[in-house]
């Protein structure tokens, strides 16, 4: 269990993380979602005690990271692909890590096998591909068999097979009762991997909820209607409290279910040529909620986003 309470980090005038409070419970995969520069990595670094918060706290099972007795046995972290000396071999990197927390040397070969790096264990890390480096980082995180795992963009640089592997892997870890926090900017990836979401933008909490709730909450679940009697339909639907968006192809209706729309059509006499429930994707929900929170955005972009959603 990870708890962040009023976590705040400033760099000069810029506030990277702003009064952030959230929980990461055990037994689930919690996705940590946010646009680039939203403070995901800074938050994870503060959880790990690498960056010191200006205010607030981040606790792991009720203790600060620096108070842990055997950090690597309690928390495993893949924070940054580049955390290895390029001249050291994979096995030697894991060996010195194991020594630091009195972890049995046999674990080194176990985790190398677990991530599929046994055949290159004696090779220098500097020669590794991004995917191999990422696997080594995951091996390092697993070394102490920890109950809490932090992964910052774990699928970066992995091939499709590797991505699948990580996805199943994270699910397995959480099913074993571990606490798993995974950050990603790949929304579709989160939809497949995470049970819960912590969504941030510009360092502030936007949502902390289940994946399903998140989609529902952000105005998902509209209905598309094609009708030759658009004017009648719009008047009727608006009276019934729906939000109606008139477009070329038809109407996009919010706040009403298809059956309610059908009833209104029968009562007020507008014809239905097509009636399609539309489920918002996690991506739509994310875009909508973080629209104002994207820090780096070319000037032309907001309009593009708006048109895409038909606003």
């Amino acid at each position, binding site marked *: *269990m990870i708890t962040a309470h009023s976590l705040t980090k400033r760099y000069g005038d810029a506030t990277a993380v702003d009064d952030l409070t959230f929980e990461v419970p055990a037994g689930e995969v919690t996705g940590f979602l946010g646009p680039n520069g939203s403070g995901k990595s800074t938050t994870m670094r503060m959880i790990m005690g690498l960056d*010191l918060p200006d205010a607030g706290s981040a606790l792991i099972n009720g203790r600060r990271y620096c108070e*842990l007795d055997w950090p690597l046995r*309690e928390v495993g972290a893949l924070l940054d692909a580049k*955390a*290895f*000396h390029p*001249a050291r071999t994979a096995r030697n990197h894991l060996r010195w890590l194991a*020594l630091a927390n009195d972890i049995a040397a046999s674990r080194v070969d176990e985790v190398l096998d677990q991530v599929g790096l046994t055949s290159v264990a004696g090779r220098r890390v500097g020669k590794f591909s991004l995917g191999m480096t990422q696997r080594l980082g995951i091996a390092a995180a697993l070394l102490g068999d920890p109950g809490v795992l932090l992964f910052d963009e774990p699928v970066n640089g992995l091939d499709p097979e590797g991505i699948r592997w990580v996805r199943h892997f994270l699910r397995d870890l959480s099913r074993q009762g571990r606490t798993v926090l995974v950050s990603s900017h790949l929304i579709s990836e989160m939809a497949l991997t995470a049970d819960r979401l912590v969504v941030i933008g510009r360092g502030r909490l936007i949502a902390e909820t289940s994946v399903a709730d998140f989609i529902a909450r952000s105005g998902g679940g509209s209905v598309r209607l094609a009708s030759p009697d658009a004017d009648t339909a719009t008047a009727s639907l608006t009276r019934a409290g729906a939000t109606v968006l008139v477009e070329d192809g038809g109407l996009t209706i919010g706040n009403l279910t298809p059956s309610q729309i059908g009833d209104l059509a029968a009562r007020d006499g507008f014809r239905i040529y097509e009636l399609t429930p539309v489920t918002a994707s996690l991506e739509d929900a994310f875009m909508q909620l973080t629209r104002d929170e994207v820090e780096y955005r070319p000037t032309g972009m907001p309009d593009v986003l708006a048109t895409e959603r038909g606003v």
Partner: protein
Amino acid sequence: MTTEILLDAPRNHYRPRHIARSELAKIVTLRSTAITVGLTIAACLLVTTLVTHGALHQQPRFYQGFDPTQESLAGMITVALAGGVFGALLITGEYSSGTIRSTLAAAPRRPLLLATKLGVTTGLTMAFCVVLSFVSFFLGQAILAGGGAPSATLASPGAARAVVFTGVFIGLLALMSFGFGLIFRSTAAAIAGFVAVVFVLPLVMRGISEASVRYLPTNILVGSIMSTVVQVRGEPFPPLAPAVGLVLMVLYAAAALAVGAVLFVRGDA
């Protein structure tokens, strides 16, 4: 649920001995360590050989005030440079490679981590420098004696002191550089700082204040530490006494380390 997973963890917590073993493993598993050590030994003994060889078969006048101990320690100047580079790299290497994040993940108590790292660094560099100082001395004396020039033994006045102090002093230079590494975190900056203090400052200070030059590390090393001949005749600013010079160097190294330690413990990694 998590407690179940943690059940097999040993009691209490990680200790300096765990960090020390880990730090040693880090140093040993880098090929560059072996290369640095090998090159340093070779350069040191080569310089000592050349310098002592150059002191053979000279005119009698050359041997007035001749200090065979100091001659035989000439190679240790190269060790000072290597020690400065090695000391800085032990910490800046971690920052440039990103290893520091893994290190702090394994041992997040920063004062404990730093103290242990410093202990390992001190032990290794001191042992290496003192041993090499003795090797350089014996090699130099063998060449001097073999060529018929005046030579010294460890029993000669001040010789044993000079040999041991030279090793310790250069170990302290490496520690000062380790401090620069903590302050700058960049290899280039730390080594530039070290070279500035050890090799540039003496030249600059000579033009500014002749009296202050003898307080600089390089001048202490050559004038007070390596030397066994007390040169007081008519000199307005005689070299510091060896013990005073060594204490001063301890303070220099401590100052660099203290600033570096504060930045390391209080700052972001």
